[in-house]
């Protein structure tokens, strides 16, 4: 276990260096010279040369890369090519925060709804409710976001007319509800299925019978003995199953008119705005890898039997 995490930690800088180097080299040697793009169609070669010299673009690629990396460590991703005179930070941070909030909302919805539905199905095992839930989660897990987003818009915004559809007002605004649900649907299904199966496992355990036998209330048994133990496998698989869902926020943002990273990324991509693309790629990869690591670190907290560092399992 500990060795596993150590290996993951050791990979982290390697991965990040590799990604940053590739994106950096592309930005420098990819199609389209940034300085000529900056100067426009008619430019004096001497001026171009001077600017190149000034910005250090004539140095060895490793020297340039080192400088870039140094700046990145200080939180400076350089200036955008497309929006001249604006730094990547200025462009990106606000939009990333919007996307992050959307993702967090979707995560909360996935986990709370998913766990409740899964528990409900497990406690009603064998009834109509159980089979119905299982069927629904099977569908929900594979329904594409391209259907969920317009489907929710049609039902809740056009037919029922009960929820707002467009724009962004922060985390505590009703406009976040529909997009978060749209993103959360596959997550709800995954979490519900996991919760149901692991709860069914736990329900048959001796300690649950013991807890009931010693006269604990049903609520306490469910909370302390069933839910807590049932959550262990859920948490461990959660990160891997939900990581892919994060990228659907780019699609949801478009459907619901949310000013997140998605549209900026599309624009930057068309304009070959490498500083922005590089920054998004680097930050995105870092968060992805860190989230995976975090999941590994969380589950010893839930289950004291699991110990990091390869210690004894005698307890």
């Amino acid at each position, binding site marked *: 276990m500990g060795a596993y995490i150590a290996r993951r930690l050791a990979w982290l800088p390697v991965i990040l260096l590799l990604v940053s180097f590739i994106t950096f080299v592309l930005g420098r040697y990819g199609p389209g010279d940034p300085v000529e793009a900056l100067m426009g169609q008619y430019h004096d070669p001497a001026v171009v040369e001077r600017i190149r010299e000034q910005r250090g673009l004539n140095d060895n690629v490793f020297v340039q890369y080192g400088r870039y990396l140094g700046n990145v460590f200080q939180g400076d991703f350089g200036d955008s090519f497309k929006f001249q005179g604006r730094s990547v930070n200025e462009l990106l941070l606000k939009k990333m925060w919007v996307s992050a909030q959307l993702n967090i909302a979707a995560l909360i919805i996935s986990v709370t709804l998913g766990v409740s539905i899964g528990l409900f199905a497990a406690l009603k095992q064998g009834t109509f409710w159980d089979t119905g839930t299982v069927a629904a989660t099977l569908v929900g897990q*594979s329904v*594409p976001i391209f259907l969920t987003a317009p489907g929710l*818009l049609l039902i809740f*915004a056009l037919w029922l007319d009960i929820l707002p559809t467009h724009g962004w007002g922060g985390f505590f605004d009703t406009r976040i509800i529909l997009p978060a649900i749209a993103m959360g649907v596959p997550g709800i299904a995954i979490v519900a299925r996991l919760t149901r199966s692991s709860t069914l496992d736990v329900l048959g355990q001796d300690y649950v019978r013991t807890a009931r036998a010693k006269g604990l209330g049903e609520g306490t048994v469910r909370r302390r003995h069933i839910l807590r133990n049932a959550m262990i496998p859920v948490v461990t698989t959660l990160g891997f199953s939900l990581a892919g869902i994060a990228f659907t926020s780019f699609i949801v943002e478009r*459907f619901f008119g949310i000013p997140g990273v998605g549209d900026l990324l*599309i624009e930057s991509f068309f304009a070959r705005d490498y500083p922005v693309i590089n920054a998004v790629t680097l930050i995105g990869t870092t968060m992805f*890898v860190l989230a995976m690591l975090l999941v590994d670190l969380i589950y010893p907290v839930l289950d004291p039997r699991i110990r990091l560092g390869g210690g004894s399992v005698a307890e």
Partner: protein
Amino acid sequence: MDAPGSNRSYWAISLRRFMGKKVGVACLSIIVVMYGAGIFAPLVTPYGFNDQNLDIAKQPPPWVGATVIEQTVVASLTGNRHEISMNEARLRMNKGQVEFLSGGENGQIDLGDRLSVQISPAGSWSHPFGTDRLGRDILTRIIYGLRTTVIITVITLVTGSLALGITLGLVAGYFGRLVDAVIMRVGELTTSFPEFFLVLIFVSAFRDPIKEWVRGIEGTLGFSIVQLGIADYLVLSAALAIFSWFGMARLVRGQVLQARENQYVEAAQAVGVPTPRILLRHVLPNVMGPVIVLVSAGLAGVAGSEVFFSFLGIGIQPPTPSLGLMIFENASISVLRSNPHLLLFPVGTLTVLLFTFNLLGDAVNDAFNPRAR
């Protein structure tokens, strides 16, 4: 193999088991129809995917009548010049007809009159799914979009999963040691990146070189192929293939490690059968079952990725039709409100395609996976 009694072979049993599953056969039929329509697109539809006809722009499907907006006139009007503040722009854009429900003759209307304006033509069976904002037939564009999906899934799976994945898996599993370690570490590395960013990097780096390369080929061939969108297909398939081989390689490697222990492999080595022949004749056939299961399970993923990347502008570029692009262009509440058919038909087709892929994957798994029941 065709002799009577040989139907007890693994393949015959699996195939029979598969054919016995109604869901599986139904899915296979739907996919054959969709793929067939895609492959033979020019024969299936009378329109080209880029045939524009602005006179019938945004025509709804045939069961929907003309869209008519009725409003009460609030601005003052003079003569028969249609100076209606709220609707004039729409009149011009849609070439709609103005019909006066009440009011004076010769187009004279007064304040408070009801005015009805036709903003989109009635549907007709010559365009079963309606037309888009440029008057292009949507069914035709969906069929060509399916062709894009077909091409991408086939190239990606054949080059990535099958060619790369199986070869590397066989090599890693059979030779072991350093080769194995290198292949597995590289694979682990590619999977620990988020696929999305890698595809993004790959496409932004290689789209232009590949386009140039295709232009070069075009120069030597003498007829134009760039317009067919071949460069886009190549770039996206290559990007997806690079990040999809590892699952297959890992599976094949595991299978090979098992198969290698078998006595028939040992026997073949003992009599001096060359290694490539052992791999192809003795090891590979025993691995094919799980391989087929994995490929059919991966179909939906590749098709979904193509749509996802095209939606984000990273994949297929217009005017080459793609379901992702069609959805991207119409992904807004205002389209849903005024011309829902622009969005719902591509979305519906995509949903059917992905669900069929998933169900097919399950059915194939049940039939071909030796461990399944």
